[in-house]
């Protein structure tokens, strides 16, 4: 079943076309990877998907419904969550609060409840806390719940950001270079973690430069170049494609 579909999505910034008529599909339960040299439009594409940019033309469909042009908060409410390339956890608040904010749209409290039924409101908040604690357990960060996010080691902060995205129980998880700054064992753990998520039914879309990681985890890979979808295929086909290797020449390649 097709979960996400883009049709000829285009985004221009002044004279530069960052994303050029990109059409992709992501199926329910897949792990799809997106690679490409720096500046090829990967992050811009994810920004389009998450509503941070408005496309100049083309359409985006999620679960069959048109989400083109919707603001970010509505897109997240529909079930798409994301992390950021340059890590945007809320550094000055606790790990737990970060997760609770991530869970915002799933917490069923309202202003009326807060004031007219405070005990129910408290119970709702407590339940939410229990849910996000279980997320922390999944990544072995239970003991750090009350720490400020900025005090976590970098790799843990990246995990935190992913958990924060998961807190809203998204159907589609968009990860923008989750491995950046991680050491090999952290990458391994992340890989295992994502596979567990996939088993639980989350569809994952990853942008990465770490080719080895992407090849090992993605079922399908999209290659971007100069804003266009350059190639699409299974990992082995992409890995052996000489054209793909060519567009990386002159750019950093990790293997």
């Amino acid at each position, binding site marked *: 079943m097709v979960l996400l579909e883009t049709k000829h999505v285009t985004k221009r*910034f002044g004279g530069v076309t960052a994303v050029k008529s990109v059409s992709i599909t992501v199926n329910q339960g897949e792990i799809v990877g997106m690679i490409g040299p720096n500046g090829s439009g990967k*992050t811009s594409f994810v*920004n389009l998907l998450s509503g941070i940019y408005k496309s100049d033309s083309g359409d985006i469909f999620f679960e069959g419904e048109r989400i083109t042009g919707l603001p970010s908060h509505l897109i997240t409410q529909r079930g798409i969550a994301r992390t*950021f390339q340059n890590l945007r956890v809320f550094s000055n608040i606790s790990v737990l609060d970060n997760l609770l904010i991530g869970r915002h749209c799933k917490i069923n409290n309202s202003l009326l409840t807060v004031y007219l039924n405070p005990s129910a409101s408290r119970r709702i908040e407590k339940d939410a806390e229990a849910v996000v604690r279980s997320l922390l357990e999944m990544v072995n960060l239970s003991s750090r719940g009350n720490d400020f996010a900025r005090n976590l080691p970098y790799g843990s902060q990246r995990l935190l950001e992913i958990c924060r995205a998961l807190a809203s129980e998204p159907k589609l998880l968009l990860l923008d270079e989750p491995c950046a700054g991680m050491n090999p064992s952290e990458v391994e753990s992340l890989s295992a973690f994502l596979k567990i998520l996939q088993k639980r039914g989350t569809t994952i879309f990853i942008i990465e430069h770490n080719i080895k990681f992407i090849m090992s985890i993605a079922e399908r890979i999209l290659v971007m170049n100069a804003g266009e979808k350059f190639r699409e295929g299974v990992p082995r086909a992409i890995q052996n494609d000489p054209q793909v290797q060519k567009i990386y020449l002159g750019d950093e390649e990790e293997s």
Partner: protein
Amino acid sequence: MSGSMFFDVLIVGVMVGAIYTLVTIGYSMVYGMLRLMNFAHGDVYIFGTLLCYTLLTKFQLNPIVAVFAAAVSGGALAALVEFLAYRRLRAAQHRMISMITALGAAYVIQNNSERAWSSQVLPFPSLFPAQPIRVFGQEISATHIVTLVIAVFFIIGFNLFLKHHRLGKAILCVSQDIPTASLMSIPINRIITIVYFMGGVLGVIGGILYSTSYNAISIGMGFRGTIVAFTAAVIGGIGSMSGTLIGGMILGITENLIGVYVSSSYRDSITFLILIIILLYKPTGIMGSVEKDKV
């Protein structure tokens, strides 16, 4: 409403507009460069204007000397405020911290000025001849014309300085992009201090021109001056000299027209109303460009 009166109002409006432009240049440059709303701007140049008043009346100094000394003092005060209060906060996480600091600086300066000059309206001497002269068959006060000419002279002069003088070009670079400018070994801190200084100098000159036209100077003009600068800068758009000119002119002419033809007691409210309307409908101003957040 006679045609000649309208012409007179228009000339005064243009003159005031030119003065407003002079006064706004310094503020606009600082905001464009550092995104700092210098709440102390008006109070700084009013200090200079008040100083000029004292030099002229109490010390009977030659006008040219008095103006020069006052302008330099005003510029120095502006640079001092930057050095003492603003510089450390340039990297502050939350921009409103520097804004509030600027407010604090405004209060300190205002209070000092008030203790020195009291809050009365003081009679600023006329520096220019007041007799009417005939232009295009209409009678206008010579003061207005001379003031206008001087203001325009400074505006054009400063523009030329920015475009052709080495220092001016360095300032323009820093206005565009600080990291790049510093990579080109332009001394950022020094340039910023110079910008504050020059903004203060131009502001004082504008203030003196205004006070000599209306023969009045008081502390209250400090806050009003800051608001004028804010409004003109917003109307014209940030980061553009032509924008500052357009903003100053529109503000000066509109204020004057409405002040004469509608009601003079609501003049201040008109300024604020214009500000609100522009902020709501075209916050980037007439010549400004929209900024995008980097993701």
